[in-house]
């Protein structure tokens, strides 16, 4: 039988820090923008309550780990994310609102995961995180949570125009044995039932999201893959151009909705 005890000092500090807030003030969130609605508005009140409780929201177990990773020295350069970006980085305050973003050094659209791995390689001399790994999920949840409450606001102008067009085309194209497009469910049938599930608009403002079905958080690329499999279409790879472009389009579709990361959804 192994017994490991966490230091009293650390957990007391955590408890004091956590006890400072009574639960996330959802009053400041915009769950609707124009005619667009967050998946939060389709969830039951019990599910909403899980999301709104910063202690009880299970995705915060990953967020805590993300904070550790942000501050952890990793790689040959002997740096952590915090070394360059600071412990409480101003950059983080809107990172979730503007990704996927164009990286002019690369001439490419990048999702946050890709940007993280590029910085790890170039700046830290550290190994990349796998897309759906515990580390990547933890770090992206921690980072995107810093933007919570801010409105989604990706750029679709200038250099990202062709990527946006590709993402929009993907969203509208029918695929798979069931010959369905994203739009068929999430535009045409949001609010309707598909068998025993209630369809939402398929917004991305809560990602990475803790899905009750997964019993853990997952990235939006994981969700894209699941959706593609469900219409019997071959899923694309995590981090594929198709999915990064689609992610941009879906983020634009949710413009004005508050970042909710980490959200709780079915």
């Amino acid at each position: 039988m192994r017994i490991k005890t966490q230091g009293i000092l650390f957990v007391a500090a955590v408890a004091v820090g956590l006890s400072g807030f009574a639960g996330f003030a959802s009053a400041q969130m915009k769950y609707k923008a124009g005619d667009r609605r967050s998946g939060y508005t389709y969830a039951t009140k019990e599910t909403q309550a899980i999301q709104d409780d910063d202690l009880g929201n299970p995705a915060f177990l990953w967020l805590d780990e993300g904070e550790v990773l942000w501050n952890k020295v990793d790689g040959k350069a002997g740096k952590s994310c915090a070394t360059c970006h600071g412990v409480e980085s101003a950059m983080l305050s809107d990172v979730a609102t503007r990704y996927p973003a164009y990286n002019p050094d690369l001439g490419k659209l990048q999702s946050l995961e890709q940007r993280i791995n590029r910085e790890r390689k170039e700046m830290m001399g550290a190994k990349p995180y796998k897309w759906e790994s515990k580390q990547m999920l933890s770090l992206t949840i921690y980072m995107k949570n810093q933007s919570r409450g801010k409105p989604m606001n990706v750029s679709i102008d200038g250099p990202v125009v062709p990527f946006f067009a590709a993402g929009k085309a993907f969203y509208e194209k029918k695929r798979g044995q069931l010959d369905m497009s994203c739009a068929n469910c999430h535009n045409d049938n949001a609010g309707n039932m598909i068998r025993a599930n209630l369809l939402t608009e398929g917004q991305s403002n809560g990602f990475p999201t803790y899905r009750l079905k997964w019993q853990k958080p997952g990235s939006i690329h994981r969700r894209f893959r699941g959706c593609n499999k469900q219409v019997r279409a071959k899923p694309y790879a995590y981090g594929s151009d198709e999915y990064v472009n689609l992610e941009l389009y879906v983020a634009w579709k949710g413009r004005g909705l508050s970042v909710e990361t980490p959200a709780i959804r079915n």
Partner: protein
Amino acid sequence: MSEKFMTQKYRRRDVLAMAGTGVVAVAGIGLFPGSAQAKHFPRHIPVAQAIKEKIGDKPTKSGRITIELPQIAENGNTVPMGFEVDSPMTESDYVKAVHIFADQNPNPDVATYRFTPQSGKAKISTRMRLLKTQNVIAIAEMSDGSLYLTKTPVKVTIGGCGG
């Protein structure tokens, strides 16, 4: 432990109809395939037996327990549940334990919560798993030996496109 749960096989292929992927409903948690397959689960212990193991044959009264559960569970694998038992919670009159059962789960014994006068309130919140539409039964054991029972139905839908 649960050797008796180790013997049954079940066919995932048979579970899904329209969505047809063969992986959707069981890929995520794999716990609760469509209810059509419930007959293939390991031996279902009757809830009456599970209750008897906890409280014997003693009679129960109704009342004193307020239980909070959704009418329809968003997902049967995470169903928020809370209860409060009406009691002064003094040294001479307090709730000793509350037993929670789910009458259609493979193991209907979900949890037992044991209180003391230092609890202040016999009130908890947690999240439980419900295999399918069924009743959640709470039995409160008082310090004077009396027992109270409440039964609450919860609808659980299974089988969709996303989960």
